[in-house]
């Protein structure tokens, strides 16, 4: 009972585990909870003692995490995790805000925090543990963020997709990845464009000032390029031709 009562038995996470570190001691508010395995998963952070009991922390409740190698502050190199909640005295997995109001402490209106330290026996793993936590934390942006106007549904997303001529894309690509996701038609269009740009450099196609009805197209970057047949009718219909 007591401070350890928040430890529960549960199976280790099976999905989305970005990093797993065995032989890791967990320390809460200066008191050791034993040795076990830390699971840094996309859904939550979990630690399971070798006996099979442990606890989980939800990323929205974690205010910060850090790698500490300052032995004068704490005698072992560790991953420090600060949680926005009272843990251990009363079981709570949610930040005080979620319960409606901040809980008042005996120390005036100080927010309760819980300090965890995860001490791996393998110190060299701390970088990987830290990075994995950064990645997982970034997957849980603050839903209660009232200060910013981040209501970017629809139009703004579509601006980029539209200009990339890929329409309503369901996933986000880096531009290298994006190239490999082009449809066959997109790939053909890209090759045609690149071919035309290459051709426009060579003198035999340098026909500036000569226009035929359906041949010359202007691209966004201001280059005038002779379009060699075949040209798919309407293929540039949705391109921006704004100068």
């Amino acid at each position, binding site marked *: 009972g007591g401070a350890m009562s928040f430890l529960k038995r549960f199976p280790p996470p099976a999905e989305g585990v970005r990093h797993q570190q065995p032989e890791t001691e967990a320390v809460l508010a200066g008191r050791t909870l034993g040795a076990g395995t830390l699971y840094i998963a996309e859904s939550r952070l979990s630690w399971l003692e070798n006996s099979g009991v442990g606890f989980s922390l939800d990323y929205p409740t974690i205010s910060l995490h850090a790698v*500490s190698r300052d032995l004068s502050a*704490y005698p072992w190199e560790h991953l420090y995790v600060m949680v*926005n909640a009272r843990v251990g005295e009363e079981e709570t997995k949610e930040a005080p805000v979620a319960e409606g109001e901040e809980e008042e402490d005996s120390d005036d209106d100080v927010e309760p925090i819980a300090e965890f330290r995860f001490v791996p026996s393998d110190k060299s793993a701390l970088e990987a543990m830290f990075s994995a936590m950064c990645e997982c934390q970034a997957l849980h942006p*603050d839903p209660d963020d009232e200060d910013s106007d981040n209501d970017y549904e629809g139009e703004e997303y579509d601006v980029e997709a539209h200009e990339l001529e890929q329409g309503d894309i369901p996933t*986000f690509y880096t531009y290298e990845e994006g190239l490999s996701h082009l449809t066959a038609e997109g790939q053909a269009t890209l090759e045609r464009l690149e071919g035309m740009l290459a051709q426009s450099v060579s003198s035999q196609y340098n026909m500036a000032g000569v226009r035929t009805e359906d041949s010359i197209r202007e691209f966004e970057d201001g280059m005038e390029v002779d379009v060699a047949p075949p040209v798919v009718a309407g293929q540039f219909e949705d391109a921006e031709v704004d100068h």
Partner: protein
Amino acid sequence: MEVSHSIKERTIAENSLVILLQGLCGHVTTVDLRDESTATGRVTSVDAFMNVRLAEVTFTDRQGTVSRLDELFVTGRNVRYVHIPDEVDIRATIERQLQAIHRVRYFGGRDKGRKEFPRAKHK
């Protein structure tokens, strides 16, 4: 120059002052946290949700205890202030970040003609 690979994050950054914070990468700065602790270190990255990653950090907790942390990640929710270093030219930083975003958005080497980007008409 780091630009997010996420279209959503680029859009958010482009439309808020987070873009200024993202331009602070490599600079040493102080972040005041919501619980009144402070962290001074070199900015590694700032994402669109204002999550800040710092390296070589001097951390002063709310009781005033000072310690060093090799790396620190603070969630945006817990950031109260980010101090802009004196040597940073704010306007130039914002413009540089915007250019970086536009270079990524219009890949294919088209940024040469980008001076005529539609928004420029409002100048």
